[in-house]
């Protein structure tokens, strides 16, 4: 039973890690129907920004909570700026081309950003400081859930709730939903569609950057290629949950994380990917739109 709980928590940690990245994927897909393969790179850039900013701040001897908050802000703003720029350069000029074109452009952007960071920073692995302090009240449970695990869990839950509410209740959210439903109609009704799409990218990238910060302090190291694998896994999670749906991305992430943890725990970690992807195939056979995705009728 104790073993089960330990595995449950490691599955939840993995799941919430995936969720932090999958949310951005699903948001962008929900609005413009583009699979933004450069999203994993936003996560990586966020982590690098966090490393640089936190190193500089710790030289000035700020207290840890202040460093954490400032670093998170800086990473979110910086990655948001990247998201904005990437959308402007790589996707907006292709707004009216066939769907495959921006997809290829996204893959190109992903490769470009990886190599850009490789050249501008380093190809080496870098140590990432533990920005999340150890909590004294967690010490008795340290073997099951650590400070970073808890932080990741809480943040991903908060982000999901905030996003769901934001999209449901705010003016911006309404505009986003309108853009998602019918771009031309939204334009006719006076919604600045380009601005909405830009904002979606900024928010999605900022979320990925926060994810980058949390995950990097969880595993303690970063490298310019971390965005790729994390991005692929998060994308899988988003598809599993129903791409375009925000609760779906979170659910999909947890299903994926738990499957991997239990496959490792009760079978062998050699097969964790086999289990994860078999599950994906199975779910897509029976629910082609994903767990919470709405099956849409193609308008002719």
């Amino acid at each position: 039973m104790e073993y089960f709980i330990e595995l449950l928590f490691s599955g939840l940690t993995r799941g919430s890690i995936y969720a932090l990245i999958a949310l951005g994927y699903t948001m962008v897909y929900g609005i413009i129907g583009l699979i933004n393969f450069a999203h994993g790179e936003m996560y990586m850039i966020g982590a690098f920004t966090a490393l640089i900013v936190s190193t500089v701040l710790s030289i000035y001897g700020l207290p840890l909570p202040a460093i954490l908050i400032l670093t998170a802000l800086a990473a979110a703003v910086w990655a948001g700026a990247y998201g904005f720029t990437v959308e402007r350069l790589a996707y907006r000029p292709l707004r009216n081309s066939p769907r495959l074109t921006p997809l290829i452009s996204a893959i190109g952007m992903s490769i470009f950003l990886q190599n850009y960071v490789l050249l501008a920073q380093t190809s080496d692995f870098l140590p990432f400081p533990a920005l999340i302090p150890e909590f004294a009240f967690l010490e008795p449970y340290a073997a099951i859930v650590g400070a970073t695990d808890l932080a990741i869990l809480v943040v991903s839950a908060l982000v999901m709730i905030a996003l769901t509410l934001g999209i449901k209740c705010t003016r911006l959210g309404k505009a986003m939903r309108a853009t998602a439903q019918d771009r031309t109609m939204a334009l006719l009704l006076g919604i600045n569609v380009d601005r909405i799409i830009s904002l979606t990218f900024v928010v999605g990238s900022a979320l990925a950057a926060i994810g980058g910060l949390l995950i990097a302090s969880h595993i303690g190291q970063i490298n310019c290629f971390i965005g790729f694998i994390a991005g692929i896994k998060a994308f899988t999670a988003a598809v599993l949950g129903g791409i375009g749906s925000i609760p779906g991305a979170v659910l999909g992430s947890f299903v994926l994380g738990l499957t991997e943890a239990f496959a490792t725990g009760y079978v062998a970690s050699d097969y964790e990917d086999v289990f994860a992807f078999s599950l994906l195939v199975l779910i897509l056979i029976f629910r082609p739109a994903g767990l919470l995705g709405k099956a849409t009728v193609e308008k002719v």
Partner: protein
Amino acid sequence: MKSGMILAVLVGLLLATAGITTAAGAIKIGVAGAHSGDLASYGLPSLKAAQLVVKDVNAKGGVNGTPLELLVEDDVCKPEIATNTATKLVSAGVKAVIGHICSGATKAALPIYRDAKVLVISPSATTPGLTQSGEYPNFYRTIAADNTQARTLVDFSLGSLKVKKIAVLHDKGDYGKGLAEYAKTFIEQAGQAEVVLFEGITPGAVDYSAVIQKIKRSGAEAVLFGGYHPEASKIVGQMRQKRLTTLFVSDDGVKDDTFIKVAGKDAEGVYATGPADVSNNPITKEYRDKFKKAEGTDPGAFFDNAVAATLALTNAMVKAGSAEPEAVAKALRGNEVATPFGNIKFDAKGEPVGIGFTIYQVRNGQFVQVH
């Protein structure tokens, strides 16, 4: 014009034969390896090493007054070319060959040398089967075989750490998995400890806590990891996060300063294998300096190993008083020879005794030799 071309070809042929025809009486030794192409950087330092050592031996009067002569052949590290190289050297009448460089090329060439009773001594071919299969009694090497590292790790874990339960992990790659499989076999053969877990982990994953819970549950006293430092530092870091104090023992893919830099305080106490540091050995210094003087750069890969191979071979010839393969083989096994790695000799299978791996431990942010 046409006759000019024929003449050029004829001259070329003449020169080519001239390369192989040699002064009567000299003992011919082949040097085979990649001297051009992608892997030339592995082969050229060995060629240079052989030339430097042979020059010294000849200056001292060769083998019983007979000078040594090197015949150099390029195999580009390709098995299909290596067979030609071998045939060429054998028909030129070499008594021994220093090479080949790559394991695949060596394996392809060995049957030809075996049938011609030519001794082969490689500075760099590490595939275990070359010696351990027993198929090539004429083969020797001056580098530790791939599984030597696993052997060192297992001997250290069982002998010095005295652990009874070991979890063997690997990164599913050729290097890590191969090492882990050897380690598992060696532990089981020794019978003093139990492999309680054998798992491949996914490199690049964002979290390893499930595997770590599994290690905890298995009750392992030590984790033996085959793979590279990025995964090793993640696993060690997360083990310590989960308050698991299990010993961590790994390979030379982890014995890298980046590991200590990235894992930080969690790296403390981790054991890793690596080649022994030989830079203070006088013979190592002597030949490295000679190379530097001749080429102006530091010697590259396998240079020390090739110096050792050539020294061992020439020393055995001198000791045996002849270049006949049987006598030389006996001398190779029976006599120790001073090399860049210290004194070495060869066991019955042709593995070097005295060249191998040693254990390091991270202490105060540095790898310190402990074994």
